[in-house]
């Protein structure tokens, strides 16, 4: 019971952190059709910017400025890079963002060096909020939950309750119609890309000190975010939200549940002996493969429902 409650909490938190990162990507992916490989790099830059700003003027300034900087960077990338690459098709765009991810990593290595930087949780939030059966839940974790929930609400309202949101939604499904109605579709694209980049930056500000700020953080976070977006379905913020939480819970509970497929089979009355085909694989306990389960789920989803959980289109 105790472990269950703590694990639910852990899963929720990790899921929300994933959502912060994935929401920006899913916006960009669904509207522009670009799988932005550099998205996690913007997350990393958000963390490094926040580190630099917070050690000079404090964390709260960084919380505002760092995402804005990332958004600005995103706007520049879209206007001067992606738009040019777009003329040569999706492959060119893909390669462009892929190359960008490497360049950002090298730049970070050159500027901040190869090891972690001491980007820490602000002292105002560095206390224990409450304890669950003796496990402390820090105020900062509560803060992460708060920010990500607020972010979800804000994006949701923006997309469904404002004029700008309607235009964005319409650009997603009928870009030509939106353009002929006199809207500047390229500018919508720039706005969305900048917005997505700012969200990634915000996730970096929050996640950088909760986890570790180091040059490998982009490449280690990239794949799982990609999984969330594909699993949740293209163009669906709600799908992305649900997928994030599922991935958070899957990874958390995979660690806690010390069972293997062989144990499950044993309950069904099938004993796994060394002679059983794939006995080695069946005996691997869940915690050892936990981090790979999201990828397994993604492959499964692509097989049975290529559009994803709540996706609206198949491409």
């Amino acid at each position, binding site marked *: 019971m105790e472990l269950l409650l703590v694990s639910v909490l852990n899963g929720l*938190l990790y899921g929300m952190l994933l959502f912060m990162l994935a929401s920006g990507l899913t916006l960009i992916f669904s509207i522009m059709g670009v799988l932005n490989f550099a998205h996690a790099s913007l997350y990393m830059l958000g963390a490094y910017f926040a580190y630099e700003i917070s050690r000079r003027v404090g964390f709260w300034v960084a919380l505002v400025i760092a995402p804005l900087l990332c958004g600005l960077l995103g706007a520049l990338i879209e206007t001067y890079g992606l738009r040019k690459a777009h003329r040569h098709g999706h492959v060119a765009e893909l390669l462009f963002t892929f190359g960008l991810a490497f360049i950002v990593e090298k730049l970070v290595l050159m500027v901040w060096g190869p090891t972690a930087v001491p980007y820490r949780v602000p002292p105002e939030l560095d206390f224990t909020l409450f304890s669950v059966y003796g496990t402390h839940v820090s105020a900062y974790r509560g803060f992460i939950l708060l920010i990500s929930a607020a972010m979800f609400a804000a994006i949701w309202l923006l997309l469904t309750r404002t004029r700008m949101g309607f235009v964005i939604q319409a650009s997603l499904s009928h870009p030509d119609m939106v353009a002929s109605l006199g809207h500047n579709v390229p500018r919508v694209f720039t706005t969305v890309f900048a917005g997505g980049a700012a969200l990634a930056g915000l996730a970096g500000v929050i996640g950088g000190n909760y986890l570790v700020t180091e040059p490998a953080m982009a490449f280690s976070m990239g794949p799982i975010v990609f999984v969330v977006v594909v699993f949740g379905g293209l163009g669906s913020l709600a799908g992305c939200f649900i997928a994030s939480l599922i991935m958070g819970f899957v990874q958390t509970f995979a660690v806690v549940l010390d069972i293997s497929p062989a144990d499950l089979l044993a309950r069904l009355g099938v004993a796994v002996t060394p002679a059983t085909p794939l006995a080695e694989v069946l005996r691997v306990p869940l915690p050892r493969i936990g981090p790979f389960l999201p990828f397994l789920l993604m492959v499964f989803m692509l097989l049975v429902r290529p559009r994803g959980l709540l996706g609206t289109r198949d491409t």
Partner: protein
Amino acid sequence: MFRCMLAVILVAFGAAARAEDSIRIGLTDPMSGAFAQTGQQNSQQAQYLLDSINSKGGALGRTFELVTYDNKLQPSEALIALQSMVDHNIPFVWSNAGSNVAAALIDGVEKHNARDPDHRVLYFTAGSTAPELTNEKCSFWFFRFVPTTEQFAEMLVRALPPEVKKVYLLNPDYLYGQAMQRDSTKFLAQYRPDVQAAGNELIPVGKVKDFSSYIAKIKASGAQALITGNFGPDLSLLIKAGTEAGLDVSYYTVWAGTGGTPTAIGPAGNSRVFALQAFNDNMADEQGDAALKDLVTRFRATHDYDFDAGSWRAMFELLQAAIQKAGSTDPAKVAQVLEGMTSRDMLGHEWAMRAEDHQVLMPYYVSVFTKDVKYDSEHTGLGWKVIKTYEGKDLALPTTCKMKRPAT
């Protein structure tokens, strides 16, 4: 006029002869790529120590010269580096990172030395810790100046305080981590039968971002101490998640003292995190003589990372003494002398190169990360303080090596 010319000729000749005559050590480590920092800091620290040894005369009146070769942590690249060293007649080959690199180099050196007996090389490592290298794969031409992972496991187990009755083992899921797990379990049974393993876990390397679920599990197990072979982000994130959740355990780690981890752990790790070390600035300050203190102070003034390779000084001194005693840099002669050779390091502890498997028996330390130190680590305000010292002979483990020595 004549005298003057003679002097010029002599000086010119002398300079040429000196450059020609330096004793070259070829270091191959990752100098580019993800592990470039390791290689670069290795070579900088080695150069610093060799400069100090050279200033006292080197060996046979010749100075040591370090030549570096990038291997990108790839065995294939390391073999190319070896070929290049052989082409340049470098007699001493050295590598640190990667036991797979070391295994490839042992094979490469064996083959080369058999093929070209007139230009043989001697190979040594101060960083590759897989036990196999001085057991099944042992070679007359290979010397190891670092303990094995098996010894690391033993050191961690023996460092557990008597009040600890429940430990949790957590290791990376590949050859190294599985060996750590196996050996820790073995030494727990041998030294601490009163201790129960409350959990025994392998984790995928570099894949886990959120360690809080592991922390919940460790807490539920009631463990008082955690023994882990994790390194890099897998270690930083584990300790961060644990201190944040208020998990009341001591972390017995192999690698918490290495590049970047102290920074990531920060003040929350105070007196909870333990690491295995061959050297740190504070032990030099507390136990060392004036010369060593001076070496450390100068290092801290000129470098912005920890002087963690300080123990290599004793390794270079052994090599220096072996060359001196052999009266030559011929690898076969030096290897013969090095076998069974002993010396004392600058802290007064004995180093011995065991003849039967060429595994060094050197002192090693368990340190705690604490505010209570003179020199801090990575500007964190906390540093490493020795709580337990192992002498080399305390750590001698049996070997299965059947050394094949050359006929001559």
